[in-house]
């Protein structure tokens, strides 16, 4: 509902955002695709010519690839499970009547605002350190031998850190979703004779299913590309080299741009698969 004049004004006003994002998306993407089919070693001779799909094959067959896939999946799946399960429980708990609800909410949400480098370092040094970390102190108190968390239980450590960062996000979104549940629905179910557990299972959980899906997908996209948490803790050692980290090392540390770019293309494809499902949910909710 508008006039030709306002429609053409709209196009002009939209242009800067569209052009910038288009450039931001296409230029690097095309460059990555280009590099991925070249033998490109900036420190060892530069661009050494066309490589075909060699980089793609080498990336897949390198000894670091499958461990990186396993590491990525372990961290993503582990953190997802923890954040969603505890997120649902916590959201339900926070939805109950209590004293000081606002303050508790603030306490729970706080970790989300902590920058990744801080949470990585604080956890690694002050909690998980085998000599002076708080966990070590607790173990000593109970007479147990402190664990070298970062070395012996690297996945546990990183999942713990990442989950601590993302649990607030899951909780907050699920809490919002729970609060949007029409209380009359629950009251109707109560009038129909459904006991509390049944009400939870047949009304609350289905109501939350969409929010849970959204949490899963958004977290997946972010978790697939976690970087700083690993960068400042293990720096990829002890088997915690994720795909993102592996590509980062190939590109910037060993300066094998061709190989790293091929890895980058894989990462883009992987992210797009997840994004596809997320966009479908978002799109359904959008009546533009």
């Amino acid at each position, binding site marked *: *509902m*508008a*006039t*030709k*004049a306002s429609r053409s004004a709209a196009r002009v006003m939209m242009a800067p955002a569209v052009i910038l994002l288009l450039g931001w998306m296409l230029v690097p993407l095309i460059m990555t695709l280009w590099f991925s089919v070249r033998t490109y070693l900036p420190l060892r001779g530069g661009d050494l010519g066309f490589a075909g799909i060699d980089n793609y094959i080498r990336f897949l067959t390198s000894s670091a690839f499958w461990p990186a896939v396993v590491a990525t999946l372990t961290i993503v799946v582990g953190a997802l499970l923890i954040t969603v399960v505890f997120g649902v429980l916590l959201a339900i708990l926070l939805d109950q009547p209590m004293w000081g609800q606002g303050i508790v909410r603030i306490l729970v949400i706080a970790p989300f605002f902590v920058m990744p480098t801080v949470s990585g370092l604080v956890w690694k040094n002050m909690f998980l350190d085998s000599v002076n970390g708080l966990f070590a102190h607790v173990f000593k108190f109970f007479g147990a031998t402190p664990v070298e968390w970062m070395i012996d239980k690297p996945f546990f450590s990183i999942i713990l850190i990442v989950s601590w960062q993302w649990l607030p996000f899951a909780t907050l979104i699920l809490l919002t979703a729970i609060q949007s549940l029409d209380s009359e629905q629950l009251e109707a179910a109560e009038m129909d004779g459904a006991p509390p557990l049944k009400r939870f299972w047949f009304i609350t959980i289905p109501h939350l299913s969409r929010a849970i899906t959204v949490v899963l997908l958004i977290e997946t996209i972010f978790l697939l590309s976690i970087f700083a948490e690993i960068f400042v803790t293990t720096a990829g050692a002890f088997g915690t080299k994720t795909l993102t980290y592996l590509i980062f090392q190939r590109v910037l540390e060993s300066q094998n741009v061709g190989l790293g770019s091929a890895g980058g293309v894989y990462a883009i494809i992987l992210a797009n698969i997840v994004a596809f499902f997320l966009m479908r949910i978002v799109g359904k909710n959008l009546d533009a």
Partner: protein
Amino acid sequence: MGRITLDKVTKSFGATEVIPPLDLTIEDGEFAVFVGPSGCGKSTLLRLIAGLEDVTSGTIRIDGEDATMVPPAKRGLAMVFQSYALYPHMSVRKNIAFPLRMAKMAQDEIDRRVQGAASVLNLTDYLDRRPGQLSGGQRQRVAIGRAIVREPAAFLFDEPLSNLDAALRVGMRLEISELHKRLATTMIYVTHDQVEAMTMADKIVVLRAGHIEQVGSPLELYREPRNLFVAGFIGSPKMNFIEGAEAAKHGAHTIGIRPEHIAVSESEGAWSGRVGVSEHLGSDTFFHIHDTGLAETITVRADGEVGFRHGDRIHLTPRDDVVHKFDAKGLRIA
């Protein structure tokens, strides 16, 4: 000055034609009301005149000048919206002054005009409030104030009273009519309520599906509706329509007789029927008569004191001089 002429104006949204070719002239100083059921295109027509929508083809002239491609800001028209569309972040004073500010008018002139409008509309005490702190009627007045300060060529009203409660609506109706008499500026008023149309208009434009069904003064439309649609739309309660043998007697396919043109009697009359629901308004009573053999129901308007009961058998006599005759296509037979 505000003579508005539409010449073969059409409007389509995609493939759907909302306004088929339409010609219409609204004279300077006239109070024109566009009336019709919802979805008849009356609001679209108003928005075309305002410039908020483009015409698909045709020409709109304001005071003889082609305004078809002129943006709304430059047409010299003022509009009062259904939702009032007040600026919630501005005081009443700033709301009313906004069009003047946009016209880069001098501040003392703005103040003078805002004060003038406020006193006309009884808003002087509310000038420093925000729209959110006003009642529906007051908001309506602010919207009107914002329109009159500009001294526009014409006022456009888009169902301005539909958000008010019934009592306030009658009051505002009178105020707008009074305003029109005083300013003598062209007003175009869109409504779906035929009572508003009848009470306020100099000229009523009855629309259906984008077509103009009839243009005329309220009494012309009441006395000589051009077709069945206008006959049924104008007047309350609705005109009774009778087909078949009774209509054939008058040489018509359908005859129409208004409820106020039928006399009731306990003993004798042309038709007879059984009393159904009676609606007592005090001044008048509307009887819904069944089993007349003429139509499903015949509505009759009688004096408020007439007291038939549900189920009573009574007799009806139409006033022959005001029977409306229509042919098979629904058009009036002169």
